[in-house]
């Protein structure tokens, strides 16, 4: 994104320009506050005691750093009737997300490769039909999926969720890899064929190693989607197999007892931390995923 030259254009200098520039930064800063404030409030509330919350306001900072709410959110907050904290549900989400992300990414890569670099008859139609799966409102598959999981004996289990996320993530992962492979010269595949490499030989030894950026983008996108999913979690799991998003919602909406806002906020941070960490560590890949999701086809 080098564009020195545009700003290099000689502009009329003067107090007006300075004012404009100052105003520009003011607006940008205000929006920074807008986006950051909820995060700050969330963290500061989670560090306060309940007493402090009742007396102070949202924007007052905690008088002392107090991790009690965090501990409670992690180990003993009540999710529905069970009071074991979020820990087991975070574990559920990990057990669900890791295999689902890995499998859907791998299958997407294979599928994208077969569909773009081996344009057999009908490949484009197959791609278009599969891509459609990325855009359907999932409500339309909830009922039959619930029954299918029941028939398979996977209802209310983590493996069931893995299946669901793999199946409906495949359209997206295929799309991501297709977009990437379209930019890869067909000549590479031809050359490898002439060298005698087979379909899987080309895929594993040539295509996969050069797809690293696409793999990272897809992994991050899938992880964010699956970790943050709520609909499938709430529709297909019960009680102890809930993923963390569902558990968080239950913690917050538990109507019995005293409302512990600090615990709610700590629980929200715990649920958000994995995806936030990925965003902070691999932000540019995350953004590429977002725009890859935007420029479809």
């Amino acid at each position, binding site marked *: 994104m080098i564009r020195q*030259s545009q700003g*290099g*254009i*000689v502009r*009329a200098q003067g107090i007006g320009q300075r004012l404009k520039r100052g105003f520009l930064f003011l607006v940008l800063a205000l929006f920074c506050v807008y986006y950051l404030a909820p995060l700050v409030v969330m963290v500061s509330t989670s560090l306060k005691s309940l007493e402090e919350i009742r007396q102070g306001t949202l924007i007052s900072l905690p008088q002392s750093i107090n991790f009690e709410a965090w501990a409670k959110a992690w180990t003993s907050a009540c999710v529905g009737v069970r009071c074991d904290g979020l820990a087991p549900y975070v574990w559920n989400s990990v057990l669900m997300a890791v295999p689902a992300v890995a499998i859907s990414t791998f299958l997407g890569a294979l599928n994208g490769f077969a569909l773009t670099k081996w344009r057999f008859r009908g490949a484009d139609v197959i791609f278009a039909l599969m891509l459609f799966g990325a855009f359907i409102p999932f409500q339309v598959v909830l009922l039959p999926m619930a029954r299918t999981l029941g028939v398979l004996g996977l209802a209310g289990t983590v493996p069931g969720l893995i299946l669901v996320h793999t199946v409906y993530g495949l359209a997206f992962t295929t799309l991501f890899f297709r977009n990437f492979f379209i930019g890869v010269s067909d000549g590479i595949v031809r050359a490898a064929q002439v060298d005698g490499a087979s379909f899987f030989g080309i895929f594993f030894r040539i295509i996969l190693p050069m797809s690293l950026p696409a793999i990272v983008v897809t992994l991050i996108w899938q992880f964010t989607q699956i970790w943050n999913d709520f609909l499938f979690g709430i529709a297909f799991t019960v009680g102890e197999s809930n993923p963390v998003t569902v558990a968080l919602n239950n913690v917050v909406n538990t109507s019995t007892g005293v409302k512990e806002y600090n615990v709610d906020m700590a629980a929200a941070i715990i649920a958000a931390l994995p995806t936030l960490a990925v965003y902070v560590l691999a932000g540019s890949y995350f953004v590429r995923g977002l725009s890859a999701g935007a420029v479809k086809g």
Partner: protein
Amino acid sequence: MSDIRLDAIWKKFGATEVIKGIDLTIDPGEFVVLVGPSGCGKSTLLNLISGLETLSSGNIFIGGRRVNDVPPRDRDIAMVFQSYALYPTKSVRDNITFGMSVRHIPRQVQDAAVAEFAGLLHIEDYLERKPAQLSGGQQQRVAMGRALVRKPEVFLFDEPLSNLDAKLRIEMRTEIKKLHQRLGKTVVYVTHDQIEAMTLATRIAVMEAGHIRQFADPFTVYDDPVDLFVAGFMGSPPMNMIEGKLRQDGGSFVECGAPDALLRFPLPDAMARRVAGRDGLKVILGLRPETIFAAGSELPGPDRFCFELPVAVVEPTGPDTMIVFEIGGRDLIARVRPQDARPQGTRFRFEVEMRKAKLFDATTGLRL
């Protein structure tokens, strides 16, 4: 008509110096071509003149006015870009009149101007189309129209022809020259194509690494290059550069080639006098391909030198045939008449017009 004067200008991007102290005076109505390899700073120099880049130091005068802090719109210039840079959402007509409508020039004046230049550039038929519906050549004409229509004092061209195919490029080259002759405005034109530079310019500035190596009319630059860089850059195929030693035993010679096959090129008197007393100096002898031809194929003249070597490669171009041969392991090119060419492997008798040879100091690269 405006003159342009660059006074000790520098441009730095961070720590990188792109323009390193250039002085240049362009007379009113001149057609100056900035030419050089990519990365030499020629486009940056043009952007500095246009105001699309801010100077690091020095002064720029256009028409006698110091314009260092004057925005592009107030410099009375127009520019044609390599990618044409047409506004994709505007029709051809609106592309051309955009500059005038920004300046609140009345509609009738705009229409009159469009009518005047659309005819001149043969774009009257596409005025209502969008740029994407035009061919590359047509887009090029629209870009020219947009520049011409405001009747500025100075025209700036940034490699305007390099996206066109070869045939169209030659056609547009001629049209640009005609336009200049007709309008007589000052033009600064950037290109990496030395043939474009030769054909268009009244004066050429050959640039390298942020410096202007030579600023002179095309013939001087071609016939009288100041150093190895200019000599090597101008001309196609390029000048033959033969490494050798100056020998002054019973006349002046340049001795070159492998020890068992030494060739001694005798220097004409004028050149010999300039290098008198520098026996043993490492030099480079520059011979343009057209100064080496088949022996006896031209009328005899003074300061001719003949030698015989095997033909390595034959490359017919149509009007001439290039014969590649080797001296001291280096490929050299001679330009001969097609009927004089001989097949690869045969021994060939070459004749050199030593008057047109150039001699350079091998260490400094400067002309001797």
